[in-house]
């Protein structure tokens, strides 16, 4: 590939963001494209905000500056909105609409904002925004936990990614445990189809 591409992945600890980013890394390695990623480990992982930056091609910095991400890969609506400042003008937000409600909302201390309002505002600024119900599609594939692979399937359908659908699917097969490969292929296909539709 020429130049570089930046993908910021945002979500909540426990949603499988690390695996999703590793799948992207595997796809890059298979194609001999340089890749650097920064990850979140340790205390912040426990149900907190998780951000993983993926840089492909000609890149030095493992971190992505505001207004520099080509794609914002949002696993959760509020976290997508929180991370939207990373997305560059004309970039693509890929957004899972299934919320993870922080316990403080249930405690009555804070409010979960309207998802419709967040989506409308994001779409208004980023017309290429793609939304999907990844968690529901993962359940359809057989396990809610596979929402990350649904999202990877969806990402494979985004224009400009330096990988074909087949290359991404191959990376999925190499990255998930052998006994759940079939479930994850199904999850991947559902995510891909949701965007292509």
């Amino acid at each position, binding site marked *: 590939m020429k130049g570089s591409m930046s993908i910021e992945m945002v979500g909540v600890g426990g949603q499988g963001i690390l695996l999703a980013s590793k799948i992207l890394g595997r796809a890059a*390695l298979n194609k001999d494209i340089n890749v650097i990623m920064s990850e979140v480990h340790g205390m912040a992982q426990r149900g*907190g905000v998780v951000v993983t930056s993926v840089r492909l091609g000609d890149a*030095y910095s493992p971190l992505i500056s505001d207004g520099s991400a080509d794609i914002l890969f949002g696993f959760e609506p509020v976290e997508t909105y929180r991370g939207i400042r990373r997305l560059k003008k004309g970039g693509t937000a890929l957004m899972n609409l299934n919320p993870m409600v922080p*316990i403080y909302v249930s405690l009555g201390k804070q409010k979960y904002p309207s998802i419709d309002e967040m989506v409308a*505002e994001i779409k208004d600024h980023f017309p290429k925004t793609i939304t999907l119900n990844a968690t529901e599609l993962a359940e359809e594939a057989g396990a809610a936990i596979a929402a990350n692979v649904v999202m990877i399937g969806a990402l494979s359908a985004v224009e400009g990614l330096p990988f074909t659908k087949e290359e991404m699917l191959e990376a999925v097969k190499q990255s998930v445990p052998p006994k759940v490969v079939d479930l994850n292929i199904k999850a991947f296909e559902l995510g891909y189809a949701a965007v292509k539709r």
Partner: protein
Amino acid sequence: MELLENQPGKKIFLLGNEAVVRGLIEAGVGFVATYPGTPSSEVGGTLEKAAKPAGIHFEYAPNEKVAMEEAAASSASGVRSFTAMKHVGLNVASDAFMTVGYTGVRAGLVVMTADDPSAHSSQNEQDNRYYARLAGVPMLEPATPQEGKEMIKYAFDLSERIGAMVLFRTTTRMNHVRGVITLGDIPAERKTKGHFDKDPARFVTIPSNARREHPLLLERLRKAEEIAEDCPFNYIIEGDGKIGIITSGVAYNYVMEMRNVLGIEPDVLKLGFTFPLPKKMLADFIKSHDTVMIAEELEPILEKEVKALAKDVNPSLRIVGKESGDLPLTYEYDPEVVGSVMARLYDVAIPHEHEELKEIELPVRPPTLCPGCPHRATYHALGKAMKALKIKPEDVVFSSDIGCYTLGIQEPFEMADFLLCMGSSVGAAGGFAQSSDQIPISFIGDSTFFHSGIPGLVNNLYNKHRFVYVILDNSITAMTGHQPNPGMGITGMHEVGQKIDIEALIRGLGVEFVKVVDPYDIQATMKLFKEALQYDGPAVIIARHPCALLEYRDKKRKGPVPVYTVNEDKCTNCHICVDTFACPAFVALPDVMSIDPAVCLGCGSCVPVCPFDAFEVLKEGEE
């Protein structure tokens, strides 16, 4: 495991800490001891699987000081040795570390410190580059995982060449960055057994020996400085000759990124061997520039050295850095922080392409105890016991410690009032017992107890301090990624070791009130807390239940795990569950509580919390 393959030239994708392990394998290291601590933990986590097939002996020590002492002795016995720790771990190990600077080493000895600028997972963001200066030991700083792997090999050669321990200083954005690594050769032979040739004049640091060894330390540093001048990790990237940038560690990545983004070409002096500094190389670079920018995270260490050097070789040099007010002393850098200064120096604009969206108030999402976490049940039971005894939060001091249970600081528990470092829960309890009119309640995990929870207990017994000591025993080092510890009796190489019995150990110290309870049994736990709070003396409660994540994983292997739900006919929407227990699986709907089945781990610990028995197992097919 891919990282064990002896296929020089092959490219694989590794986390920084995994690349360090590959470096150890390629360097022929024979002994590694560590105590896990973010961002260093994956070094141990990777060795748990890789050490045995690689032929390395690997241990988890109960703390960093023990690991350091083991590594020093192993090196003195002729085996290449390594220890890794987080930055504050080096504080714990520093007593041994400082004096190894004096004795020097035989086989290579490398100490990795994993610093955490921005304190992502730490109690402070101290800059351990000072430790190299304090102990008088050479230091290397990698910018990327690949460079880290190569530096490890270089560090062992350097260590043996001059007979000094080497500090390998990393930061979070190296440890937790994943990149493409090119594999090197794995040596055919690996020495794991040597012989300790006695030399008490060197290795027994009585005052007369220490006095003789200090000049030897300085002589080793002098040799190190000469080597630094020719070190392949110190190099210049030529540019337009106008402005120079001196940089080390991960800040280099941001400099190079912004050099591309801004389309400018400053000369860059990239330093990897950063103590002692290559003074000749630096002087030449300073002499040939009018303006030099220093890009280093945290303390202005390079900056002060450059300033001192400039006084002699280029007094009119303009130094752009922290002391000039251009760059911050706090937090990790990013491309923008470094790039904005570079843009100013070249009078170009930083491209800003982000959109301003309207402000929507977003809920915060701090880390929380996981669903099913036994610590939640412990805190809940203590809250109930205090309420029953009419003890208010102001009447006690919650002296917390370092581990998952520190998250008890969050609502609704708010059971963390004081925390300094590993083991401070129990040490501080003595001070509170003596100087405050409150009852200290210390919380400590099993791993932290072994790390540094014992001397404080000895103190509180010896000096007759009354306190409640709660050992939250989930039988694993959970926060850092589930490493085994002495309480499990499983070693770092997953062999059977001796299981250390916490209860017997504490009884052996002479504590009379020592009781073990399963916190999932909330009634029993509450009763025990009531007893402990009314007991006139040190009271120890061991709240023992496995980490919920591991228990869930084990159960799932055996068969389907139940998912709980709320019986809407029974739920009165009283919110007692969320207000006093607050499992992250609870989602408050307008008229009823509900459980998010994607979050619930099926532990059932919430069942006794509801006064109306509304939590029930969701039967299959019934939704």
